[in-house]
């Protein structure tokens, strides 16, 4: 191969790994296996409804399939996927498409591992949990996003910053503000009762 041919090959075949359809489908299969649980939790944290969360996970991977040509350009698949899922969940919530969430609070409690559930039951009841989540929904959008994403063990602060397109320090301050405001609201509600 001459130097010109080599250069031309460099220009036109920048993603040789993703050239065949089989490769793309293998990558998407691997993404589903690795990230579907994380995406489900992210979607669930917004919609609080199991069926809605599953729909959003499916929709997220359909978007990946649609934009499969961009797969080679993605630096951090987790950040990219969570961002898609988050936006889809917000869109659904905004359009008021979400099903009632109250039924699923009990569902969620059932799905938690029993030991974990017992420990949390000692701190918070199902009704109190619903109350805290309702207060979280009253937080400003940016603070709410940072707080909910920070609850995911799978996501680091740097990744949350990537998802929110901001800096890590900004994320830390948003989480701090969210928790402070939430604590104030909880105390106010507690004193009113």
């Amino acid at each position, binding site marked *: 191969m001459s130097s010109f041919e080599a250069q031309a090959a460099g220009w036109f075949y920048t993603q040789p790994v993703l050239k065949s359809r089989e490769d793309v*489908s293998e990558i*998407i*299969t691997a993404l*589903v*296996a690795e990230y*579907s*649980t994380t995406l*489900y*939790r992210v979607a*669930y*944290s917004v919609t*609080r409804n*199991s069926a809605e*969360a*599953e729909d959003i*996970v*499916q929709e997220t*991977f*359909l978007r990946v*399939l649609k934009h499969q*040509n961009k797969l080679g350009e993605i630096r951090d698949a987790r950040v990219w996927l969570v961002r898609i899922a988050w936006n889809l969940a917000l869109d659904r919530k905004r359009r008021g498409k979400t099903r009632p969430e109250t039924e699923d609070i009990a569902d*969620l*409690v059932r*799905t*938690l*591992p029993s030991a*974990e559930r017992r420990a*949390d039951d*000692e*701190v*918070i009841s199902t009704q*109190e*949990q619903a109350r*805290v*989540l309702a207060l*979280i929904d009253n937080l400003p959008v940016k603070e709410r996003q940072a*707080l*909910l994403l*920070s*609850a*995911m*063990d799978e996501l680091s602060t740097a990744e949350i910053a990537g998802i929110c397109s901001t800096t890590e320090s900004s994320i830390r301050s948003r989480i701090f503000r969210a*928790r402070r405001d*939430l*604590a104030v609201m*909880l*105390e106010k509600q*507690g004193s009113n009762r």
Partner: protein
Amino acid sequence: MTFYRNNPDEQINAALRRLASAVPPPDLEQRVQARLRYKSAERKTSGGKLMDFFFGQRIIFASAAAGLVCFMIVVGSVQHSHQRAFSAPAIHLPSGNGLGTASSTHIAPAPIAVPEHSRPRSEHKVEDGRATVSRDAHKPKGVAVPESTAPEKP
């Protein structure tokens, strides 16, 4: 445990922990994979391949479209300049496609005879007689100035 129940921070942590540890349905992955396979097959059958081809070659198509637009602009401007070409009697522009250099313009070797009852190009008179070009005024080389049909007023 009463301490924890009354502690807002602990309540927030517990609520978030519950939310973040939601367990997806056991066959979620299989369902997602099945839907992806179905969509993928659907794309293949409903002109997906054609769309993929056009999308994959988008740089080439974009370049070709840009080239075509440039060509049309050049052709359009050349045609426009043909329509608006200055036709001085003593200057012969080369006949062709309109593209040429300045040196290709030929000046007539001899003065051109002016047709009868025609006004010389270099002598203009306004109706009220305020602005006139004198016959002694400097004129470009090669431009013929025939006798004026009307006598020049001082």
